[in-house]
């Protein structure tokens, strides 16, 4: 008994097809975006590769006047600020996550979680503003004090502005703290209660349980969380740009003005006029993009395995 498809049936079929097509298109667009970014940045940075080739990565001269460009000072600045911030903020992030997962009751944990979200949601430029006018003067005072302490006149003389690697590291540490704390908290919350109760029943104290049961259980996902936070810190732009001092040379101390890959672009792109200068800055963006994508994919894979285990 074949029935002719009615008008409304056909309309529904068209709608179904359009719907499937829209979903697929959006999904493909999302994947293509990564390729588009790669191609676009690669093509527009060609002039830089033509001039400097692969040694661009480890040349330490960045001189817009003579048009000699090398990424080493920025790569070094990025690594120092990123790992420095991670080193400082990780113990606190672990502490906060443990406090929220095991010590705080619901009445305390909920508001604290809200405040963490608040701190994490503040725009980068706000941190930059605060860093520039509040943190940098403090760092400057510390530099003078430290310079007198070790008896280094050059430090007292040169480093008194406060802008530089140290200010950037401290500011970044604050900025990634809410991010890493909430990621670690997420993994702590999935530790099976039976495991914890088992340890407690054997007479372990709360801290014994945390140290010997919970932390080993979440080791893998904590690593994933920290790698993700590192990725954040490496690419953070505005706050770092405002406090790092746009130094073009390889930094010799933590008090030196420096640049990260991101801050060099933000500081200099609008001033760049020659094609090689522009292409070199785009090349920095390409390096940063590739690093960020790799770090994020690696971290997600670690996190996913952590959950499965």
């Amino acid at each position, binding site marked *: 008994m074949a029935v002719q498809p009615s008008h409304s049936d056909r309309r*529904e079929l068209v*709608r*179904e097809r359009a*719907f*499937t097509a*829209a*979903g*697929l298109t*959006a*999904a493909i*667009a*999302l994947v293509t975006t*990564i390729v588009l*970014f790669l191609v*676009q*940045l690669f093509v*527009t940075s060609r002039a830089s590769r033509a001039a400097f080739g692969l040694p661009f990565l480890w040349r330490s001269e960045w001189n817009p006047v003579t048009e000699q460009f090398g990424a080493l000072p920025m790569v070094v600045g990025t690594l120092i600020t990123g790992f420095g911030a991670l080193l400082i903020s990780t*113990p*606190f992030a672990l*502490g*906060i996550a*443990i*406090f929220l997962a095991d*010590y705080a009751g619901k009445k305390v944990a909920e508001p*604290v979680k809200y405040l*963490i979200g*608040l*701190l994490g*949601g*503040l*725009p*980068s*430029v*706000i*941190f*930059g*503003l*605060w860093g520039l*006018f509040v943190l940098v003067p403090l760092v400057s005072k510390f530099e003078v004090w430290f310079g007198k302490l070790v008896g280094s006149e050059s430090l007292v003389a040169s480093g008194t502005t406060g802008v530089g690697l140290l200010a950037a590291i401290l500011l970044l540490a604050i900025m990634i703290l809410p991010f890493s704390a909430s990621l670690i908290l997420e993994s702590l919350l999935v530790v099976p209660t039976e495991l914890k109760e088992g340890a407690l029943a054997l007479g372990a*104290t*709360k*801290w*014994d349980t945390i140290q010997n049961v919970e932390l080993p259980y979440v080791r893998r996902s904590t690593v994933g969380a920290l790698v993700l936070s590192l990725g*954040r810190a490496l*690419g*953070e*732009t*505005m706050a770092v740009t405002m406090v790092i001092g746009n130094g073009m040379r390889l930094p010799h101390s933590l008090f030196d003005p420096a640049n990260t890959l*991101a801050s060099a*672009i*933000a500081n200099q*792109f609008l001033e760049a006029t020659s094609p090689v200068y522009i292409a070199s*800055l785009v090349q920095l*963006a390409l390096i*940063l*993009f590739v690093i*960020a*994508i790799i770090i994020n*994919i690696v971290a*997600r894979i670690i996190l996913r395995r952590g959950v499965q285990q």
Partner: protein
Amino acid sequence: MTLRKLKNSFMGALVAASALLLIAVLVVIMWHIFISGVKYLNWDFFTKAPAPMGEGGGGVFNAIVGTFLITLVAAAIGTPFGMFAGIYVAEHRSQRFADIVRLCADALQGVPSIVIGIFGYTFLVARFRSYSALSASIALAFMFVPTTARVTEEVLNLVPSGLKEAAYALGARRSSVVWNVSIKTAAAGITSGLLTSMARIAGETAPLLFTAFGSRYIEWNMLRPMSALPLQIYIYASSPYPALQQQAWSAAFVLVLLILLLQYGAKHLIARVLRVKA
């Protein structure tokens, strides 16, 4: 036994202290923004464009308009892509391609904002030979899509499968199940996700530096350079004039207020969804 118990209480105090420290830092930052921001707020600040160089007064109305326009247009461009990508991933959960899409969305969320700015410049501004608010919106849409896709997927996964199965059992097609059952059940959650994503892009500066560029005039035309609050904060904070630096603090206060409002709206909606569920 005493040593173990001592260690226990010591570590307990230590983790509580680290939580306190975070709250203290947040309070200090918010306090500075509030104190320094409120001091210079007045009616002109909200209603006037910046005063000409050297004159006092003036406001950031141009930047407020810009933030609203750029953010809304970015959300308008990004929402369909983000939502449909999210729907696709949620509906094809077990397929390998959906997994790749999800991984790409995660990876794109981690792309540094300055890279998005450079991409926006080389892809749009350099091609059309003009800075414009529209290119800023498109650049921000690249940040908006992955977040929206992930949120949509997560919210859709919360829809009880019994509801969907009931609709399928009645002979509904996939499109109408998704539209009439999943999306309707998850509407508040998806809207909440959209607001959160908007709160995120409204505070972005780096993607605007080389696209919207900034403007001293009140501008409504998306094809022309335009200012925005984060951009204005950055420019004023880096200027040597104390009067402009003060305005940077006030603009920061307004921006934080705007973001808090968006986040509050998002939280409120989510709370309602959870209440309905319970």
